[in-house]
């Protein structure tokens, strides 16, 4: 009889758990419907589109074709149909990778000391400094890009100052260069570097730093051997958070690159505008998405390993 009642009660508990799970799904479903309709679902449709044939004036014809994917990397000569590597695309991929990398490195070089600075402020003023970092994050990316443009254009404040100081006689052409794009991306994504690095830094136990100094480490040594290894998860997170949106950037290169210095984002847009090659645009998008996913996966694997090290 005792066994019987135990079975009843565990049935009771399992039923309660099932009810909770059902409730959880019911609560989450409306959000999931919207997300499937307007975020995940369209990605699948786009994947399908990348295997269709381009229509003559935009759109597609519903016939299977790998031409879109083919064109991502290769170009077919219009006249004699010879196949060659798509130099134009490759140089755009290369620019995207290079500028994203440089942006990440610059943001880290600026963001790490800033995060450290905030983390070593007295507790009372730390929130204020942090707030100062988040305000630009809350403001429009387009506006911040405009602001950078105001600063670096030929009649902008930098050139004006340099010329009136007599350092240069002609304005330096900064706008509409790769440098402008890199600068702009660093500027708009810098908070994304500072915040996660700070989050790690805030948890740093400064007694460990003291221990480092106690054991004859110099400031540089303490930085390299104690502080950086301990805040590495934050650094990795910050780098990922800067690298991924840089790779897919669209607004910044469009505004600061002046339509000549394209990145992948602009190349994709072109296929839905003047280029009118939807399958190629879809394939390029999926390609970009895959690269981003690989970066994210590496990050997740890395952070899990870091967790394991901490745990063992």
């Amino acid at each position: 009889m005792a066994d019987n009642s135990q079975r009843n009660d565990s049935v009771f508990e399992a039923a309660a758990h099932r009810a909770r799970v059902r409730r959880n799904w019911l609560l989450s479903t409306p959000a999931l419907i919207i997300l499937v309709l307007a975020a995940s679902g369209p990605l699948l449709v786009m994947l399908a589109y990348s295997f269709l044939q381009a229509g003559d004036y935009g759109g597609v014809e519903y016939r299977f074709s790998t031409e879109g994917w083919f064109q991502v990397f290769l170009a077919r000569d219009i006249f004699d149909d010879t196949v060659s590597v798509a130099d134009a695309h490759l140089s755009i991929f290369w620019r995207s990778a290079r500028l994203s990398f440089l942006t990440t490195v610059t943001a880290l070089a600026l963001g790490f000391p800033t995060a450290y600075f905030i983390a070593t402020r007295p507790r009372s003023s730390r929130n204020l400094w942090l707030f100062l970092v988040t305000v630009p994050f809350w403001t429009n990316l387009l506006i911040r890009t405009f602001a950078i443009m105001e600063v670096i254009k030929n009649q902008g404040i930098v050139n004006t100052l340099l010329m009136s100081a007599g350092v240069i006689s002609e304005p330096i052409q900064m706008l509409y260069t790769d440098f402008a794009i890199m600068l702009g991306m660093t500027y708009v994504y810098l908070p994304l570097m500072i915040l996660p690095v700070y989050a790690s830094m805030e948890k740093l136990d400064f007694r460990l730093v003291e221990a480092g100094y106690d054991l004859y480490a110099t400031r540089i040594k303490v930085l390299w051997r104690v502080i950086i290894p301990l805040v590495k998860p934050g650094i990795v997170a910050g780098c990922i958070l800067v690298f991924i949106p840089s790779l897919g950037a669209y607004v910044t290169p469009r505004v600061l690159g002046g339509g000549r210095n394209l990145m992948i984002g602009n190349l994709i847009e072109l296929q839905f505008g003047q280029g009118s090659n939807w399958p190629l645009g879809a394939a390029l998008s999926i390609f970009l998405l895959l690269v981003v996913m690989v970066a994210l996966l590496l990050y997740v694997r890395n952070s899990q390993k870091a967790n394991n090290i901490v745990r063992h």
Partner: protein
Amino acid sequence: MSDSVSVAIHGVSKVFGHDRNAVTALDDVSLDIREGEFFTLLGPSGCGKTTLLRLIAGFEHPTRGHIDLHGEEISHLPPYRRPVNTVFQSYALFPHMTVAENIGFGLEMQGKSKEETTSTVGEMLRLVQMEDLADRRTDQISGGQQQRVALARALAPRPRVLLLDEPLSALDYKLRKGMQIELKRLQNETGITFIFVTHDQEEALTMSDRLAVMSQGKVLQVGAPREIYAHPAVRFVADFIGDTNFLDAELLEIERDRTELKLPSGKPVSARGAARSVDGKVHIAVRPEQTTLTRDADAAHLEGHIDNVVYSGTDTHYHITLPGGESFVVRTQNRGDSGDEWQAGQTAGIVIEPGAVQILAD
């Protein structure tokens, strides 16, 4: 205090997790808690006392067995249908409500009228002497005051049983002493059954009408504080409550309610109650304060070598090694005139007071 049973716990077990990860928190616990008594569940952390409290409150359901409140089974009622209230260890005061709103919450949920709620809240505020702070937010009052609000909130709906989950553990020593007296006063004034959970044996002994000592999911002994202290039934209880010397003795003779034993020294001694033993050996416990030192070898029950003399204000503790290698502690009260009568290195006789030998069941 009447003798009718308030909470009856019948063969309750609670297992968390499944299969290989299963952990038994309570193992076939049966208890009767009488109406209007101050009952304490005492035990070390992880002994299942809090789980038992949560089962009574309705936050957990028993895996086996059932719980009755005044003869009616309540095991499967949700907490909000049980006339039982809890004072949480963390107090769990609603931070977005004032003191008065917190106290009135239960009444409001029970659908009491505004006037009744207001008057009961006022009554409760008076009861815990918090009238002046009725409109404060709960994060603006001290820990001791929060404690009173938590009490008032749980008492306001006039529950049949009040459950208290280590409510004093967050308070400092002085406040805790004050609240112990306060709790007893509230219990006397309201006449509500209190079930109190603590790991502090002193708190349990001073406050309870009766207590249950728990260990590893089992109830080891139930009784009045004096009974539990003077006559621990098992080794764990003797050890957990107060200091104890443990010895092995040989069984000489069992009478109806007394047992004659032979100590390791060969001296005979008698103990209350009947011992059960298979191989003629029994385990006994002797409280250190029920022993004294002597130079008279004939009067001594035991003899040993003093290793250490520790002075602690009111008492002096003598740490002694018996010839068989067992350690034994004798505690004597210090009086003004006594000097350093015994010193480490000496050999001393130990006298056990009559009735001080307690036979353990394990």
